[in-house]
């Protein structure tokens, strides 16, 4: 994987995660959660902008050229972030698994040799810690809440789990990731799905699910309708 593809992977994860989280606006189960999800979306969007700007420098493209003028085959995000939001349990499962990847990732990058990337990661790492905490709390509340919420949270964990293998196929080891995730699932009284089964991937090489092109069609429609315009 080229350096640029690597940066695009980090940036696209954050961008697509932000886009999905922002879909919750005015639709959360609680007003406080509207604030919290917007906050997390803003964190992801902020990290995405820094990462895409950095990635774009070697390509001669700015953040908007990368966000708005690539097709889905050129996006490098993992499949997990592009999956539909589903219910609140699915959204929390996605966020838990993503942040349990981004937290050790950014921690490592913050101590890495690339100073520019280290600075971005140092900021993003603190945010990831909050995302992980927030989604952990909800996973626990839902897992150990009512019968219905337990069922939904377990279903969400089971459905999203296969997509986490793609997260841990690169710079974050499966064991580091599991170290974060397992205690949360245990406290949430949830069954940890087994590894070794279905492990969809392709996102890092631009082979996505059928969902991403719809997301991009909506995200890019206005920008593309006015070529060259400033906003």
């Amino acid at each position, binding site marked *: 994987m080229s350096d640029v593809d690597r940066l695009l992977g980090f940036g696209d994860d954050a*961008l697509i995660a932000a886009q999905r989280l922002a879909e919750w606006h005015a639709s959360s189960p609680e007003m406080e959660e509207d604030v919290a999800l917007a906050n997390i979306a803003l964190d992801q969007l902020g990290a995405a902008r820094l990462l895409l700007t950095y990635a774009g420098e070697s390509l001669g493209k700015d953040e908007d050229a990368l966000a708005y003028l690539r097709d889905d085959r050129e996006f490098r995000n993992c499949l997990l972030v592009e999956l539909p939001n589903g219910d609140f349990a699915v959204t929390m499962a996605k966020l838990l698994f993503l942040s349990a990847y981004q937290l050790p990732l950014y921690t490592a990058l913050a101590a890495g040799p690339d100073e520019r990337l280290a600075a971005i990661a140092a900021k993003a790492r603190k945010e990831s810690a909050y995302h992980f905490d927030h989604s952990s709390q909800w996973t626990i*509340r*839902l897992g150990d809440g*009512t019968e219905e*919420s337990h069922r939904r949270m377990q279903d969400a964990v089971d459905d999203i789990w296969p997509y986490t293998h793609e997260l841990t196929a690169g710079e974050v080891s499966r064991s580091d990731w599991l170290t974060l995730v397992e205690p949360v699932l245990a406290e949430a009284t949830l069954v940890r799905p087994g590894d070794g089964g279905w492990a969809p991937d392709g996102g890092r090489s631009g082979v996505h699910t059928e969902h991403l092109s719809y997301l991009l069609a909506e995200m890019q429609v206005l920008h593309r309708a006015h070529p*060259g315009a400033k*906003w």
Partner: protein
Amino acid sequence: EGLEEYFTAVIEADQKIEPRDWMPDSYRKTLIRQIAQHAHSEIIGMQPEGNWISRAPSLKRKAILLAKVQDEAGHGLYLYAAAETLGVSRDELVQMLLEGRQKYSSIFNYPTLTWADVGAIGWLVDGAAIVNQVPLCRCSYGPYARAMIRICKEESFHQRQGYEILHTLAHGTDGQKALAQDSVNRWWYPSLAMFGPPDADSTHSAQSMAWKIKRFSNDELRQRFVDMCVQQAEVLGLTLPDPDLRWNEERQAYDYTQPDYDELKRVISGDGPCNRQRMAHRRGAHAEGAWVREAAAAYAKKRSR
């Protein structure tokens, strides 16, 4: 008796009534109605602007809009908290909204059809809100006045961002300029109507003025808004859609065409373009979140044992 005299004295001295203080029941009810309506407006107001988050044309604009919609959720929270100091719970107020027994600002019953509407809402709708709300920072009820100070600060930030969006569009491509003008054309009169019916038809106003909840009449505030907008429109290079708008030397103010108050009444009574959509969305989100709120309550109960 002494309590009522103290209340009146505080009001007259331009001091604040606080939650612990005695207050007339009608003062309390008026405030609850007004603060709740304001809170509901923040919550419902997230919908029309939120409609463009996913499609914002640059990442910077997306971040700004997302932050703005987040601020509105935050404002809703402060305001419900302010209302709660008057002895009503947020759940009760939310229920009143969902059942249609309390209103929210009618302006949010218009659709956001283009990105420029995000600009126009910032400039005109937030602008009108600020003109309405700045005097509320001196409202006689302490918690409301303090909430408004914080909210007005953020609102004026939002207004500037909306103005910037329109300014960029108005100085952009022909297509962008057309978007901006179209949007101002659609939002101008609904924004004027935000100040409510003409003073002659306005209920509640006299008592609210006496209590120093309200400090200026609907028509006074509307005029202030018009005068402010005319100058800003010129800088924007956009036309306000009122052929009769002109400076009145005598009044030292702009003459302008009144909004269609029959339309305003229809929208208030539920027949605006988006009333049903906004309420259906709010009710749907509330209903779909029920299992989550129940789970959180069940979990909290387990922990507290």
